[in-house]
């Protein structure tokens, strides 16, 4: 394999593996929020706001992987 192929492979792996954790995290967050909503539908507003905040925090980790992948694929 030449260097270019390995670079592309590394970018794909970085993105794929890096998206794994945040995906699981967002799934768990959505699960918790849904359960909270089902138990207590009146608390919809705060649950939704906090869920979006926590999801964005989890998503940020995926974004780090994306930055690495972009740098590998396009800049480096």
């Amino acid at each position, binding site marked *: 394999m030449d260097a270019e192929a390995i670079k592309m492979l590394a970018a794909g792996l970085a993105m794929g593996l890096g998206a794994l954790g945040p995906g699981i995290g967002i799934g768990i967050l959505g699960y918790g929020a849904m359960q909270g909503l089902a138990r207590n539908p009146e608390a919809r507003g705060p649950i939704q706001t906090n869920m*979006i*905040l926590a999801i*964005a*925090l989890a*998503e*940020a980790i995926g*974004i*780090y992987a*994306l*930055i690495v992948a*972009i*740098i590998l694929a*396009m*800049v480096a």
Partner: protein
Amino acid sequence: MTGPKKRGCLGCSFPVLIIVGVIVIALVVLGFITGAIGQNMLSGLDLPEWLIASSPQPHLPAPELFHVFGFPITNTMLAGWITVIVLVVFSFVVTRRMQIVPRRLQMLFESALGWIYDVCNSIAGEVNGRRFFPVVCTIFLFVLFNAWLSLIPGFGSIELVKNEPIPEDAQIMPSKEDPAHLVALVDDREYEIATVDGQDTIVVEEELIRGSNTDVNTPLAIALVSFVFVIFYGLKNARMDFVRQYVNFGPLFRSIGRIFKGKFDFMGIFEGAIQVFVGGLEFLSLLIRNVSFTFRLFGNMTAGEILLLIAAFLLPFVMPFPFYILELLIGLVQALIFSLLTLVFVTMAVTPAHGAESH
């Protein structure tokens, strides 16, 4: 879907609906045949060059446009200044004629700011919420308007064309598309060669303005502002308690001191050492917070920009549309996260936790 008595469908009369439908279908077809997907599938199609979506060339570092008093001015800085000007003009217009019964624009701003103010109060408490509100709200408004303004057409699409002398490491070679044509290759990018005043120069096309947070320096600057803000209020309100969170030699030295009084307290020394270690970890997390702040905002904004570019490349007119709506939401959420995390950290700093186990 529509009842028999209703005229029209989806709230429009039929002629309007048909016109809208035809326009949408035309855009879909046009997007398909001019985008990369259609170009690959229908390779026999011959379209004029200006109609075909050109392949996106995202680049992370912000290019320098010109120099003012020796300082390089980049396109992201221009976007930042535009954001500031827009915010200042908005606030001026809104507060120029304040009324007790607010009009539309004043109503919008009052409800938005009131909402952030309520959030501040609910997280930091009455007294502190009022004190922290200005910085938190400024961060929120700057990040939000930065993200939303960069969705306006013109950001990233107006280009500044300038001539620069050919750098030393440039390779003059035939272009990939047209072998009869010579281009200069600098850092894997092809530049046209033009002759100005008898000198060979490369034609550099740079975006005139680009969303300010797609340059890593702006998020870093905001993160540092929030860092200084947290440290300032931590030192001002909690004083030694704030410092003790990070540098905690007291229990260790006290236990060591007890050895000289003839009491060997091994557990005390051990716990003291752990306290020192935990303080170091806390200090490290205080510093790493900046990195996390920076790259969260930078990554989200850059990823959004590249996502839009690639969507517009694959299927122009149609595919970017849902992503634009997504970007509106992401801008709001990122602004909210940046400001709320600042608020939470500064609240944690002014009310130091008692004991290391409380988090």
